[in-house]
């Protein structure tokens, strides 16, 4: 009977129901594949693949393959690098080559560019002496290690870098020197901030969602609007609003001074630091907690609480034993949503975070736009993406992607 009905319903679909359904989905799948998945794949390939040095210095790298890594490389390597650096200079790839070698070993940029500019074949002088004459760094095995390392076409160095690790010249993977370690602590900070924000949003959002869910319909829709207004308001507008409220000459400080609660010269620093990031992000993320909680709570009859009370449970008992367990799907959905959004947040920390309120996303933007170390930006992005993907799968397991609703 049901399959019969099914078949008749499918007369709407011309040539086989499955084909028809797939045909409807296909354009968007292709579009997302091209405009979203392909870009992510490009980013991931950038994080492990870098042909610039390998393409510019093929002969040198070939010779360094057999090098023992302990002694200074033999004469042919000096000749090869001299010729290839000169050629790179003519082909205008030298800058990019020098940057990459410099990233592996700081200070080598000037060595590379100066050598390419000055080196000339000299009668009666070995290539080695010529190069060392241009810069003493050519007499240091570390220089050669850096060149060999930067010449890897496929490399893990961006990921190592993103985890504050490096590969030493003997092939060991070891922590970077203290002064260069930034990313792991930033990842930790991002994790801690995201968890705190999730907790904070749950703490603030749960009671409010409860109030809305069990208010009389008229009042409920009014209260719901109070949550939806910030949800719909432009992110930049909300961030601007917090700057206006929190800055030293802003509304809150001026009010406190006017009320005589603080002295004019001791205005509170509430923005361009972690406080600013936390406050503004809680504001941004709170609706994402309240709305799923509200959606679940709305379906829980108040009768359950009354029944528990009539059976002798105190209000607290009735809440913890009867109400709270039923809201867990909403708690899970809201918390995961807030956490996923928090961990990749960029705009708000960038605008109100100052130095101390930056998160890992700001580092991606920094390497994309300022340092132009795109391989490293891609690697940090890859780590973050993997993390979010895991959370996404957890979300799917716990809540189900198909049950995702908006507002």
């Amino acid at each position, binding site marked *: 009977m049901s399959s019969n009905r099914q078949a008749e319903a499918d007369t709407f679909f011309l040539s086989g129901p499955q084909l028809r359904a797939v045909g409807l*989905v296909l354009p968007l799948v292709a579009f997302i594949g091209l*405009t*979203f998945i392909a*870009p992510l794949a490009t*980013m991931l390939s950038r994080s492990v693949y870098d042909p610039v040095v390998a393409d510019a210095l093929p002969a040198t790298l070939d010779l360094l393959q057999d090098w023992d890594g302990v002694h200074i490389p033999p004469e042919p390597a000096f000749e090869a690098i001299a010729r290839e650096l000169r050629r790179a200079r003519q082909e205008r790839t030298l800058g990019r080559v020098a940057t990459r070698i410099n990233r592996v070993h700081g200070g080598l940029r000037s060595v590379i560019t100066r050598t390419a500019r000055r080196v000339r074949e000299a009668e009666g002088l070995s290539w080695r002496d010529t190069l060392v004459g241009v810069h003493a760094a050519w007499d240091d095995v570390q220089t050669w290690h850096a060149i060999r390392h930067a010449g890897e076409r496929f490399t893990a160095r961006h990921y190592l870098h993103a985890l504050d690790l490096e590969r030493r010249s003997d092939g060991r993977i070891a922590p970077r020197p203290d002064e260069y370690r930034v990313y792991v602590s930033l990842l930790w900070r991002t994790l801690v901030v995201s968890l705190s924000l999730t907790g904070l949003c749950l703490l603030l959002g749960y009671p409010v969602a409860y109030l809305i869910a069990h208010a009389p319909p008229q009042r409920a829709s009014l209260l719901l609007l109070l949550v939806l207004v910030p949800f719909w308001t*432009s992110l930049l*507008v909300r961030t601007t*609003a917090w700057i206006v409220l929190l800055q030293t000459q802003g509304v809150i400080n001026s009010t406190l001074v006017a009320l005589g609660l603080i002295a004019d010269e001791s205005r509170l620093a509430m923005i361009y630091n972690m406080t600013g990031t936390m406050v503004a992000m809680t504001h941004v993320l709170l609706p994402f907690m309240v709305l799923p909680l509200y959606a679940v709570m709305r379906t829980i009859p108040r009768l359950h609480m009354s029944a528990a009370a009539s059976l002798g449970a105190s209000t607290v008992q009735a809440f913890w034993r009867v109400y709270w367990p039923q809201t867990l799907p909403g708690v899970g959905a809201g918390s995961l949503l807030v956490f996923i959004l928090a961990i*990749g947040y960029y705009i708000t920390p960038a605008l109100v975070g100052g130095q101390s309120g930056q998160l890992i996303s700001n580092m*991606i933007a920094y390497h994309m736009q300022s340092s132009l170390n795109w391989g490293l930006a891609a690697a940090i992005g890859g780590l973050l993406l993997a993390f979010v993907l895991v959370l996404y799968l957890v979300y799917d397991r716990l809540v189900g992607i198909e049950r995702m609703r908006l507002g």
Partner: protein
Amino acid sequence: MPPRGLWEIVGRTAYLVFCTAVFVFLIAPIVVIVPLSFNAEPYFTFTEGMLRLEPAAYSLRWYQNVMGDPEWRHALLNSLFIGLAATVLATTLGTLAALGLTHPALPGRSAIMGLLISPMITPVIISAAGMFFFYSNLGLTQTHLGLILAHATLGTPFVVITVAATLSGFDPNLYRAAASLGAGPLRTFRRVVLPLIAPGVISGALFAFATSFDEVVTVLFMGGLEQRTVPRQMWTGIREQISPAILAVATLLIAFSLLFMLSVEWLRRRAGGR
């Protein structure tokens, strides 16, 4: 449930005070911006005159400032153009996909759904970085087309979700009824399906437009001077020299989002009441 004792009253009052505080936290920042945008002085606090409600303390100068600025006008045109084009693209593709997704015969539904929703879950900074790498290979950075594609991508999940939600309450017998009355598939879609899912489609389109209209990260990464949008312009304003002109723009955007929100709520109620 009448309160049973003193503690209940105290607890209930504390609870209501707490909730009120949270509501104030949610709304106050947005409300505060509005009067400040009419400040006659270039300050971000209420001047004495404003507090005494003197008409002279208020002015439209920041609004005139914004309206007269060719950069802001250019940004608005860009935002509208990119937003509308992205919305049309996202709504068309998203609606079709939602029709396919809610069809019982679709194989691998949850995997496809997961794929189609993924642009919404992925942090925008990652999407934008990837798009920058990929689109620059295709020569699409610093073009309007590149941003339209990027924004359409970010907007499609909203369309898919809202339309699929409307379709979940859809009675498949209606297809049969339409077919038995002699309507072909296209006619059935236009006359039966579309009117029923219209609220979902329009909500989805509004979501998609709002997404594009508020998006700044892909514009930062991929847009050039010619592609500056309103949020991009605000970004510069906030970073470089925050002037009350920003507050005027912010107030206009608040009015704009209120309009959007009320439309979506109205549509939702219309769809829900069916």
